[in-house]
């Protein structure tokens, strides 16, 4: 165990063989390991119910609110064990999650939503105001709508609010859960472009869960494929994108999140045969 940690000392975030159980009985993750290098964009891929969101919530410790428990394994951030930290402390240290389905505060204005992201900060109003400007530079559309109630903004704008709100915490790593969900392809592209710019220009590290495999692989440098609560494949994003299995499984359906059961079965069969 310690040898593993030694060899991974470059990792910003590392998840070591975790098992997650909901409600004390539902075993959902059966030993997931992954690592995220500083400055990387890592994709966490897999079909519905594979355990992507659960993995992210295990890291951000939002599982507790859903009666989920990490029963085995460990999670380290910057070399420190962070499993027992509350979401509040994790956000302070630079780990923040953008939840699936965006979860904006509907009755707050766009700007108030963004400001809630700065809740844990103690570096003063003027620094927060600077970052608000920065977020508006990345998302000019939010600036136009700053006084509208978030509940009345479009799905794309809500995704921007959710990402912008996380940025306001000045995070080291953002755990981004299905940013493409329910968005038109063009908007998905726009969001991913911004993720790329944030990664390159602001140095934000991303771990992103996606069903939109090809799009996610295009914008990331490493990927993990999750199935039934286990990592079944991982590798450089470019290699995964070229991999025949991945292609067969995801090609032609990459823009659409509905996948036929036959495809899934063929993939499973092949997987079993491979391993």
């Amino acid at each position, binding site marked *: 165990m310690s040898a593993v940690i030694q060899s991974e000392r470059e990792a910003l975030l590392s998840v070591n063989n975790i098992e997650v159980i909901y409600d004390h009985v539902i075993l959902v993750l059966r030993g997931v390991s992954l690592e995220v290098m500083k400055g990387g964009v890592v994709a966490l891929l897999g079909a519905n119910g594979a355990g992507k969101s659960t993995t992210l919530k295990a890291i951000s410790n939002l599982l507790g*609110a859903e009666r989920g428990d990490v029963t085995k394994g460990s999670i380290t951030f910057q070399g420190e064990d962070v499993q027992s930290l509350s*979401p*509040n402390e994790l956000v302070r240290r630079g780990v923040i999650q953008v939840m699936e389905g965006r*979860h904006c*505060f*509907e009755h*707050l204005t766009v700007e108030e939503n963004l400001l809630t992201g700065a809740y844990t900060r103690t570096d003063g109003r003027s620094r927060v105001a600077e970052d608000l400007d920065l977020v508006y530079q990345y998302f000019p559309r939010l600036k136009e709508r700053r006084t509208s109630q978030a509940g009345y903004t479009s799905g794309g704008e809500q995704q921007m609010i959710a990402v912008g*709100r996380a940025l306001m*915490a000045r995070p080291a790593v953002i755990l981004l859960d299905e940013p493409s969900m329910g968005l038109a392809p063009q908007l998905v592209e726009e969001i991913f472009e911004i993720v790329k710019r944030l990664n390159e220009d602001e140095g934000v590290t991303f771990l992103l869960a996606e069903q939109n495999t090809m799009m996610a692989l295009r914008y990331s440098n490493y990927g993990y494929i999750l199935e039934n609560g286990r990592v079944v494949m991982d590798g450089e994003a470019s290699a995964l994108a070229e991999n025949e299995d991945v292609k067969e499984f995801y090609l032609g359906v990459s823009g659409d999140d509905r996948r036929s059961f036959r495809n899934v079965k063929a993939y499973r069969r092949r997987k079993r045969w491979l391993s």
Partner: protein
Amino acid sequence: MAFDLFLLEVVISGLMTGVMYSLVALGFVLIFKASGVFNFAQGVLALFAALALYDFLAEDGWFFAVFGFTLPVWLAIPATALIMIFLAWVIERAVLRFLVKQEEIILFMATIGLAFVLEGLGDLLFGSDVKPLDIGIPQGASDLLLDNFNLYVEKLEIVAAATAAVLVTALAIFFQKTRVGRALRAVADDHQAALSVGISLNKIWVIVWSVSGIVALVAGIMWGSKSGVQFSLSLIALKALPVLILGGFTSVPGAIVGGLIIGVGEKLAEVYVGPLVGGAIENWFAYVLALGFLLFRPQGLFGERIIERV
């Protein structure tokens, strides 16, 4: 003319009773919005606050027995506020924290338990006799209104209304303009998302229960000054229920307006309809009105608009 003046007096006295209902309902709404908990103990909180305040002021209280002096009013009120904050902290530590993941009905039952514990504690510590609360609010009718308009209005009622107005304004500013107020509204909207941006729910609960405790203190002071600190104070909590149904459980303005409507409505009904049916309408009017609302407008007058996009 005289008739109209009488009507006006009835309306004003109804408004003043309504302010009391509003204050108690306000405490309910704050806690309900932030945590989804229906706090049955809100009325008892007002009673407890009034008892504690009385204790600081009176020579037959514990404070006097221990320290040998009583506190002046300007110190006793902040001291009681501190006690309410401490109580909020204890409630979070001892009750809420362990029940958060339970069903709402369990939390509701916990607050019923809390109401009885607090009431029992109040009885044990301070005794159940009626205690006159005098914090120096002038008594009797306002001479100004009586002389100029021939209108009989109690000074106490004017003070109560003004205090309530100041309190509500302060709360509105707190909610709209401060970082913690914003966090409170965020939690009310989506507590998971609030958690995800690092807002600590435990801390927020202590804050809302403290704010509700202070609102309860104001209600307790007003009610206690009017009719003495007595255990029937906790019964106004029951009147807050129809107020909430009328105003909507999540609406601060709803709590205020609902309280005023019920206060005025029941006084008017008592005076004008009462004689026809043999009186005592005041006791049940609010519930009948609430029933009507449940049938025709269950979200209340100001129930939070449910945002639905198409």
